[in-house]
């Protein structure tokens, strides 16, 4: 099993993600350059946070057209897990791998702090090790995390249980006060219908060691590693 962390020009959480998988979880991990067109031998692809292509035009709008994204699309369509964090989530939205779009935070401010998240769906590779309804603590750091989707899309997300995480109070109440950025329905993370593509604004890779202030992110990354270990080797699709 090998994890691939995609590096776009302007990615800045790529090394944190690499460190989390390789040194904390102890999983073989490689960087994948944005100009690469194949993802041979990888079992999980991660789009890390940062400011790909300077966030020019819209966050993720240009990264979406980099050569590697065609391969990521095929990789996802073959059922392999793809995780997008922060800017990686924004890229997945722009690429149409997840529904909706990001607006500027309601406050117009870049927000960098710890938030609480309620686990809404444990039936994805990334959340299988969590408990339904439990509250996690993870950091966010973004200016465009105000998730928007039209009403019919939100209904679709609910019908197919695609919301993975919502911003909540420490006791797990999903309230306006607990919403840091104005995201519709407090949505902090969501998956595609199949569950193998997950995007989230909070940074699991920044909460993998006690030294960093928390380890709830470790559990998310460990979930997908456990999912891959439980999967027969032959299931890894060649892309």
């Amino acid at each position, binding site marked *: 099993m090998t994890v691939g962390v995609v590096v776009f020009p302007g990615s800045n959480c790529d090394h944190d993600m690499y460190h989390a998988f390789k040194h904390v979880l102890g999983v073989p991990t490689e960087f994948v350059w944005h100009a690469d067109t194949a993802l041979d031998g990888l079992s999980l692809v991660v789009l890390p946070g940062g400011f790909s292509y300077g966030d020019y035009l*819209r966050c993720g709008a240009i990264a979406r057209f980099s050569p590697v994204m065609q391969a990521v699309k095929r990789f996802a369509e073959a059922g392999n897990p793809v995780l997008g964090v922060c800017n990686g989530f924004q890229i997945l939205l722009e690429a149409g791998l997840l529904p909706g*779009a990001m607006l500027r935070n309601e406050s117009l401010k870049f927000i960098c702090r710890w938030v609480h998240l309620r686990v809404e769906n444990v039936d994805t590779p990334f959340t299988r090790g969590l408990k339904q309804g439990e509250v996690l603590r993870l950091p966010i750091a973004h200016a465009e995390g105000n998730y928007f989707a*039209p009403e019919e899309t939100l209904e679709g997300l609910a019908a197919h249980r695609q919301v993975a995480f919502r911003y909540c109070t420490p006791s797990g109440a999903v309230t306006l006060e607990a919403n840091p950025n104005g995201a519709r329905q407090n949505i902090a993370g969501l998956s595609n219908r199949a569950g193998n593509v997950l995007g989230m604004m909070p940074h699991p890779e920044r909460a993998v060691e006690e030294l960093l202030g928390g380890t709830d992110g470790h559990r998310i990354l460990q979930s997908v590693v456990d999912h891959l270990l439980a999967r027969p080797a032959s299931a890894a699709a060649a892309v």
Partner: protein
Amino acid sequence: MRARVFVTLKKGVLDPQGKAVHEALESLHYTGVGSVRVGKLFELSLEDKPEAQAMAELRTMCEQLLANTVIEEYQIELLPAAGGRS
């Protein structure tokens, strides 16, 4: 030939930037402003080609890249080339 593309947030999509600008205008005592929406303007210089063809290409540029049609809408304006040539 040249074109201008205006990209703005759709009606019903909250525009925090526009709201902040509106509040700033009010604090400067411009009291008659009902609301402000902030958008983007693209100025493109293009190879000369029939208008219909240029419009069709500009529309696909908007759909593919210039606008995110989940949250934004666009308007295209074709302009004569500056100084008669481009």
